[in-house]
């Protein structure tokens, strides 16, 4: 076919806004919609839910997203791909099928399995930071990054909705391009171009003016109604990016440049299961009217090994905050921090005292400033036990009656920490499979 295929990205992270995806389906005539919903840690947290209940472990917002989208997807024949299956794509697909049934819809749904390699993770497997799996203590999840071929097998079943767990984010765009344009998985130039398209789309609003505005220098209209991006991709991999007419945000050369390099460790070799893409060979051109063209782009053969994210229990983080204001605010906040430090003593793996408004984001690296009107003391500590970590918030709260004058607005937080480490395994250790789910 010589016409381009249009792929929209309706979510760039698990908690992303809901309605921009619907706008892409209803008002931008997309052929495929991708929803990227998995950060590094999301699966490990979802795995804990699955252990508690075998019917759970998929992204919490999956059903809300699908309830909103499915009628429009069905009416317009738009096919959807998402990694929101998280730690349990099969249960996610079954839950979506049940929801569709209640709504009187009957989409064909495929679950892509095989990323979960926890049962074959060798204790002596080397991690990329020099440690070994056994050094991590209690491992709760191990998920290989599957590639576009796994999603492609989902599309080939004829499924309207393809739900996976861990896949490389750009693969969500590359798979429909391979499916429609007939791209071969060993055509390294096309794999690189499709990967570049997917990389530009995968953070959704970050291509269309989100995470970009700097008032007076980089102005972005109407971020409250930010439109999410789509790409028209031709059979040779050339692509033009845009967003729904009338939506907020902007897409231009500057937004596209920032996103092209986002989280890229080597611009000459961006590695996914599908490709080693050279982003320095990509040419971007501003076509005006919120359209950017991507041309060129080359690549090398894909890596032999698959990256695996290993989640492990890493103790608990407790936090406490309290505000001081007016003359001497900083000195009183600092004093409060010293008191809490003295009370907590040793026994924390890590303990940190910040003054929000003074030094909490960048330390003291960038010089002295006039005293600010208010300072919020924040203390954070990581410990093996929940009880120990909880003491951080308790001690900050106790500054009310036992600390410096005028402390107000104390808050305390406690959360379990799942650490994530990376390893690499042979592809043969993570074969994928597809299960068709009937409503």
């Amino acid at each position, binding site marked *: 076919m010589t016409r381009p295929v249009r792929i929209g990205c309706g979510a760039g992270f698990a908690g992303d806004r809901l309605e921009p995806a619907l706008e892409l389906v209803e008002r931008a005539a997309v052929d495929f919609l991708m929803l990227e919903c998995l950060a590094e840690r999301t699966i490990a947290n979802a795995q804990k839910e699955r252990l508690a209940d075998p019917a759970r472990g998929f992204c919490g917002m999956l059903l809300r997203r699908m309830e909103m989208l499915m009628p429009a997807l069905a009416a317009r024949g738009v096919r959807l791909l998402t990694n929101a299956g998280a730690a349990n794509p099969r249960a996610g697909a079954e839950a979506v099928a049940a929801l569709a049934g209640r709504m009187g819809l009957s989409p064909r749904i495929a679950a892509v399995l095989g990323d979960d390699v926890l049962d074959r993770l060798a204790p002596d497997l080397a991690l990329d930071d020099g440690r070994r799996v056994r050094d991590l203590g209690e491992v709760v999840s191990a998920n290989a990054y599957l590639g576009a071929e796994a999603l492609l097998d989902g599309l080939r079943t004829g499924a309207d909705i393809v739900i996976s767990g861990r896949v490389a984010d750009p693969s969500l765009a590359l798979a429909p391009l391979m499916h429609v344009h007939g791209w071969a998985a060993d055509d390294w130039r096309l794999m690189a171009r499709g990967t570049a398209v997917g990389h530009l789309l995968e953070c959704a609003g970050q291509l269309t003016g989100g995470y970009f505005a700097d008032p007076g220098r980089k102005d972005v209209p109407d971020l409250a109604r930010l439109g999410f991006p789509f790409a028209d991709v031709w059979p040779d991999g050339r692509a033009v990016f845009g967003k729904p007419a009338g939506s907020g945000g902007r897409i231009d050369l500057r937004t596209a*440049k*920032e996103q092209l*390099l986002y989280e890229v*460790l080597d611009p000459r070799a961006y590695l996914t299961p599908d490709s080693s893409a050279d982003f*320095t060979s990509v*040419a971007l051109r501003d076509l005006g009217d919120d359209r950017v063209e991507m041309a060129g782009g080359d690549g090398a053969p894909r890596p032999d090994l698959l990256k695996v994210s290993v989640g492990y229990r890493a103790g608990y983080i407790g936090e406490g905050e309290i505000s001081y204001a007016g003359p001497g605010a900083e000195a009183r906040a600092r004093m409060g921090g010293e008191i809490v430090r003295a009370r907590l003593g040793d026994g924390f793996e890590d303990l940190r005292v910040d003054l929000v408004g003074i030094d909490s*984001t960048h330390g003291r690296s960038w010089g002295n400033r006039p005293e600010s009107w208010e300072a919020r003391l924040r203390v*954070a500590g990581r410990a093996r036990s929940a009880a120990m970590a909880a003491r951080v918030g308790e001690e900050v709260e106790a500054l009310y009656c036992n600390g410096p004058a005028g402390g107000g607005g104390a808050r305390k937080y406690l959360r379990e920490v799942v650490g994530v480490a990376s390893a690499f395994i042979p592809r043969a250790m993570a074969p994928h499979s597809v299960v068709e789910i009937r409503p």
Partner: protein
Amino acid sequence: MTPRRLHDIAHARTGDKGDTLTLSIFAYRREDYPVLLASATVERMRAHMQGVVAGEIVRHELPLLDGVHFVCRQALKGGVNTSLALDAHGKSLSFAALALPLVEDRRDAGSAA
């Protein structure tokens, strides 16, 4: 006279991968790309980011994009998952980088500011 900063000629975005910070900086105008290259050197960025970046800093030049891309190791207190930092991703560091003063030709500096 206040010296101009990267913020006056360039825009930036940071990203995170584990304990590694990526930092892209792009000149708004092609004619400012040489000033960006001269100002945002590895040595100057290392000095500017002292206390933030503990490990190696590598700079990639991106002439097609009028940009430079820094990859900074050991920059995120061990990484997003277990870090106690308030901005564990280092997302706000893009604007810290843009505070770096420019290296400009003396003759230009007078007329440009």
